[in-house]
């Protein structure tokens, strides 16, 4: 089953790559824009730290680690789940009807319909900067690295849950065009350590909109600042949000009437 999904994904990815290559100037512009955003944000953080020593107790290297971890989680989600952005259009244009009769779960077909290679390219400098940042962080052992990788994956799974909920909302309402963009805007809060936010907002970002769990928890695990209880909580949030999103998706599909096609 997994091999089949992988084959479908690879085929769709090759087609997306071809489409992006044929859109040369446009793709170059989008890629340059993404790199500019990364460069400028990074440059501003480094520049600000040339005038101060810490941000809520975090050093420059630690703050950069939070920022890069946000990028890893966010960009990975963009690479693999970009197709979900077209969910509303797929419903309105009737494409979802075709997806439903294909021998592949519609959610996977929908997610794989666009694989963003531009984001994949953006991930390269992020990972290079991350590697350079690690060398400036003292006392990082294998356990911390394993915890970091696990919680990054956990963050991507929560992002997957959000994307599935957005797709389900599109199927149920044929509206909410900008739900995914609200998620993208809210993710801005994940660029900085969740500890900088005031009491109520920190709780919101840890419990109700778990952006802090997605982006700050992995970095805190790497720095040895995350308690085992918080680690278990993070895994629980991912399991609960994924379970809910899949139930919600199935429920949305069961109510789908193909009304727009």
């Amino acid at each position, binding site marked *: 089953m997994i091999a089949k999904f992988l084959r479908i994904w690879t085929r769709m990815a090759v087609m997306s790559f071809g489409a992006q290559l044929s859109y040369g100037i446009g793709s170059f512009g989008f890629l340059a824009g993404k790199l500019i955003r990364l460069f400028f944000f990074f440059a501003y953080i480094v520049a600000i730290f040339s005038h101060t020593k810490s941000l*809520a107790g975090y050093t420059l290297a630690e703050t950069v680690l939070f920022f890069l971890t946000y990028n890893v989680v966010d960009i990975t989600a963009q690479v693999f789940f970009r197709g979900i952005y077209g969910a509303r259009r797929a419903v309105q244009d009737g494409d979802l009807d075709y997806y439903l009769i294909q021998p592949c779960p519609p959610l996977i077909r929908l997610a794989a319909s666009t694989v963003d290679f531009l984001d994949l390219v953006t991930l390269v400098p992020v990972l290079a900067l991350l590697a350079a940042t690690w060398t400036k962080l003292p006392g990082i052992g294998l356990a911390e690295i394993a915890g970091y990788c696990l919680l990054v994956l956990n963050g991507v799974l929560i992002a997957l849950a959000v994307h599935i909920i957005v797709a389900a909302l599109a199927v149920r309402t044929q509206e909410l065009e900008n739900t995914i963009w609200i998620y993208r805007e809210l993710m801005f809060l994940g660029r900085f350590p969740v500890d900088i936010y005031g009491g109520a907002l920190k709780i919101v970002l840890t419990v109700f909109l778990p952006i802090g769990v997605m982006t700050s928890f992995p970095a805190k695990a790497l720095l040895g600042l995350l308690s085992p209880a918080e680690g278990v909580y993070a895994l629980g949030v991912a399991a609960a949000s994924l379970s809910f999103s899949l139930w919600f998706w199935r429920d949305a599909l069961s109510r789908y009437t193909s009304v727009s096609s």
Partner: protein
Amino acid sequence: MRKYLYVFGLSLQNVLQRRATLVMDRVGGLAAILALYYFWEAILQGKDEFLGYSRSQMLTYVLLMNVMRSFVFTGRGWELVQEIAHGRISSYLLRPLSYQGYSLSLDLAQKTIHLASALLELVVLVALFHAPVYVPARAETWTLFAVAVAASSLLFFFLEFLVSCLAFWTSESGGPLFCFELFLNFAAGSFFPIDVLPRMLQELLRATPFPYLVFFPINIYLERVSGPEAFRLLAIELGWLAAAWAGTQVIWRRGLAVYAAEGG
């Protein structure tokens, strides 16, 4: 003039008709302001000032960014790109109106609503955070600030229009427009004030029109530039506005000359 007022009125109604979309847009946009507000609060912890900005000046800068972004950064670039790419612009060219005037009317309606929302949000955020808002001491600062904001809004309109006109030559102009808008956001100081950057990068950016969109108007409001300096900056901004307007007229005419109404 009356037809543009009608366009303005119809556009106002159109935006207000989709209230849920408007509210969701505004809520999403607030995330960046919240993040940056808390970021600067954390940086200013235990400090009276940062790079010459007092605590109230820096936090006011962040809060004003939301107002500036709402009033300055609402253009019609993406619509223009689509209208050229799909040939829809043809129908406007046949009508007895100027397309730029029509666009500006639509844009002004959007700006009016977003500005009203941003001012309301400003009041809510100030009340919520008990933010120490900087209020200019000199009366003329308000006038200078209002003129600078009006000019920066027009400057953005023409700069974005100019880049969007690339669509006359290529159907792939969305990428360059995306790149331009992201660069402009950072170069204008709409995330961080540009004077935190290294001196060389600052000088480079100051030689472009971008800091006149957000950074300089806010600095005028914060009275970080003296009276004569504020007038000098305003004169440069108006110079950039004239250049952007002239550039737009030239590119627009050349674009129309090669326009083939593909898809129209």
